[in-house]
């Protein structure tokens, strides 16, 4: 599109004092041009017409603020992603559209009002949901940093999945020994208050002061915390009548295998493991990241403890990603574990009556079907979201991804945070994660939670609703609109009037649109501003 023509046009618009074009507005020189402009022409409004506000609005708002202009007196017009990039074959029309969009932006900008972000205090304490190794690590880190931690565990004791594991990769240390040391550290840490066989019943409030109702076998109690970390992990899929599971006693899952090994009740001679059971299939499309490595670990342990044993792993792709896993994968081959690749269309069959006896599989490399003797068949199944994810997501008002795990705000920008401020996520609750990765994420989530708690206050975006009490008739329709119950109907000397709790309000505007008396106006998106934009559309 013809940018100089647009710049000339903008110069002609009323109230426009200065208009300039620069190549990279989001680069340092662009930012300093804005600041210089504000000071030079003592501007009271700034408009940037370039890419999308979704990525760079905070950047330019900060620039305005640094130059002494209230950051809500800034308007962003998208003439790249929604104009020049999508109308490449019609440059003149794209240029005209850019002019219209900027004219509408100017119309809105004229009516922008300065808004102040309200500082709300943050209670320096955190509730960690989930007492597994991930939850404990986050709790220990925050406690060491000096914050009070409420560690809430549904089960009877701390430790989570690690309690069921036998030995851990890569050092083959006893899982129980590690869990023990972690639990002792938690016990020794005075700042951590652990709640066992306790469920979170209700969560109200917002970043800085969440009111949480806990339910310990019927006994309810309430705690107030500044931040929440979700570390409830995930559970192993129990395959339903696949490969004879549930029918043959000697067909078990990897977790069940580890429990037997832990109790010393395992003495398999010919073991066949089948990977991707119930995973990477149309019904459950995702790969659960480290179940291959669990199989490799257990297979290697079997070989090491019983050199006479024969162990096969039937896999579709061996996900030994990174350095340690690839090295361990090669080490397990050296220990005699045999790997056979099978195709999703030609899955292996478990044969036997009463108990599994052999496994028939199409051997890709040899190009024919072979049979493996098996006195034990181990199914490697993926981790699946916990059953109560749905309930917790509704309670915390945080979304779940398609597969049912918790959905973080942005996979790269904010991988350990939710869009809802003050609530953080780590471990397999976000996505199947092996222990070391999970612990690292636990520390990450602790770091994110520590930021508001250390600062002591938060300043949520000032885009909230505002009730003009002279117009409000108290009909109460707005109350029904708000999922965050951020608007309440107060009864003052016999009269009903609506009132917005700015800290709770997310600024969606549903109440503003529904308010029949026009008493509710949405800061930064007022009716007048939007009507002005509409009028400017055809001006």
């Amino acid at each position: 599109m013809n940018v100089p023509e647009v710049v000339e046009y903008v110069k002609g618009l009323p109230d426009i004092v200065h208009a300039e074009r620069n190549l990279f507005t989001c680069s340092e020189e662009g930012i300093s041009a804005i600041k210089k402009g504000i000071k030079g022409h003592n501007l009271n409004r700034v408009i940037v017409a370039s890419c999308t506000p979704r990525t760079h609005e905070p950047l330019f708002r900060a620039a305005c603020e640094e130059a002494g202009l209230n950051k809500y007196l800034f308007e962003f017009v998208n003439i790249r992603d929604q104009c020049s990039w999508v109308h490449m074959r019609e440059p003149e029309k794209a240029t005209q559209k850019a002019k219209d969009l900027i004219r509408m932006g100017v119309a809105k900008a004229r009516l922008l009002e300065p808004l102040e972000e309200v500082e709300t205090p943050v209670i320096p304490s955190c509730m960690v949901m989930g007492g597994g190794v991930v939850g404990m690590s986050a709790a220990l880190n925050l406690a060491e940093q000096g914050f009070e931690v409420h560690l809430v565990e549904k089960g009877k004791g701390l430790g989570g999945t690690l309690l069921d594991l036998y030995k851990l990769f890569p050092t083959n240390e006893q899982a129980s020994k590690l869990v023990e040391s972690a639990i002792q550290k938690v016990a020794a840490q005075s700042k951590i208050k652990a709640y066992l066989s306790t469920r979170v019943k209700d969560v109200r409030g917002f970043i800085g002061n969440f009111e949480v109702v806990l339910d310990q076998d019927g006994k309810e109690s309430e705690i107030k915390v500044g931040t929440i970390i979700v570390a409830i992990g995930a559970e192993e899929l129990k395959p339903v009548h696949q490969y004879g599971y549930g029918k043959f006693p000697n067909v078990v899952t990897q977790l069940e295998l580890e429990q037997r090994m832990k109790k010393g009740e395992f003495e398999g001679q010919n073991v066949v493991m089948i990977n991707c059971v119930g995973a990477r299939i149309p019904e459950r499309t995702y790969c659960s990241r480290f179940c291959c490595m669990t199989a490799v670990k257990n297979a290697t342990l079997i070989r090491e403890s019983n050199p006479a044993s024969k162990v096969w792993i039937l896999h579709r792709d061996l996900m030994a990603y990174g350095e340690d896993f690839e090295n361990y994968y090669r080490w397990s081959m050296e220990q005699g574990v045999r790997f056979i690749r099978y195709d999703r269309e030609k899955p292996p069959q478990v044969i036997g009556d009463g108990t599994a006896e052999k496994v028939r599989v199409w051997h890709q490399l040899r190009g024919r079907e072979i049979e493996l003797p098996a006195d034990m068949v181990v199914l490697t199944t993926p981790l699946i979201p916990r059953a109560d994810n749905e309930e917790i997501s509704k309670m915390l008002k945080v979304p779940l991804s398609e597969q049912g795990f918790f959905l973080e705000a942005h996979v790269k920008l904010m991988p350990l945070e939710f869009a809802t401020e003050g609530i953080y996520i780590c471990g397999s609750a976000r996505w199947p994660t092996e222990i070391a990765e999970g612990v690292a994420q636990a520390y990450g989530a602790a770091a994110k939670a520590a930021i508001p708690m250390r600062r002591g206050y938060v300043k949520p975006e000032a885009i909230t609703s505002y009730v003009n009490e002279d117009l409000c008739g108290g009909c109460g329709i707005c109350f029904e609109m708000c999922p965050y119950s951020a608007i309440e109907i107060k009864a003052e000397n016999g009269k009903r009037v609506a009132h917005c709790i700015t800290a709770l309000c997310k600024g969606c505007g549903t109440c503003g649109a529904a308010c029949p008396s026009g008493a509710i106006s949405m800061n930064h998106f007022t009716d007048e501003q939007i009507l002005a934009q509409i009028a400017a559309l055809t001006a």
Partner: protein
Amino acid sequence: MNRDKFEPLILGFACNWCAYAGADLAGVSRFQYPPNMRIIRVMCSGRVDPTFVLKAFASGADGVFIGGCHPGDCHYIEGNYKARRRYELLKKMLPQYGIESERLRLEWISASEGARFAEVVMDFINVIKELGALGKRQDQ
């Protein structure tokens, strides 16, 4: 104004989290679509007050488009449900004003549906081209 030369002017509302993001993705992926629509960004499709729709038609827009999140995706949990109901009632009332209900369109577009955004906009523009000008711009 004969049919093929007529260039409709369309006002679009797009919710910041889904439809607007979808429009950006269409941009990043360079999906081309006709330039007849001007988008106003709102925080949620629930923010779109029927007053805005009537004001758009009154001031000369030939079509009004509202883009929101798929049910269940709304960043504010329920905003899009409210938008859907207001839209359905408004669609019944518009013909009483002589405004074909097809001139108003509500679509669910997620942040990852760049291609769909382009298709839907292109289709809506063709529908409006068929319907012809609303005619309000002349007697403005």
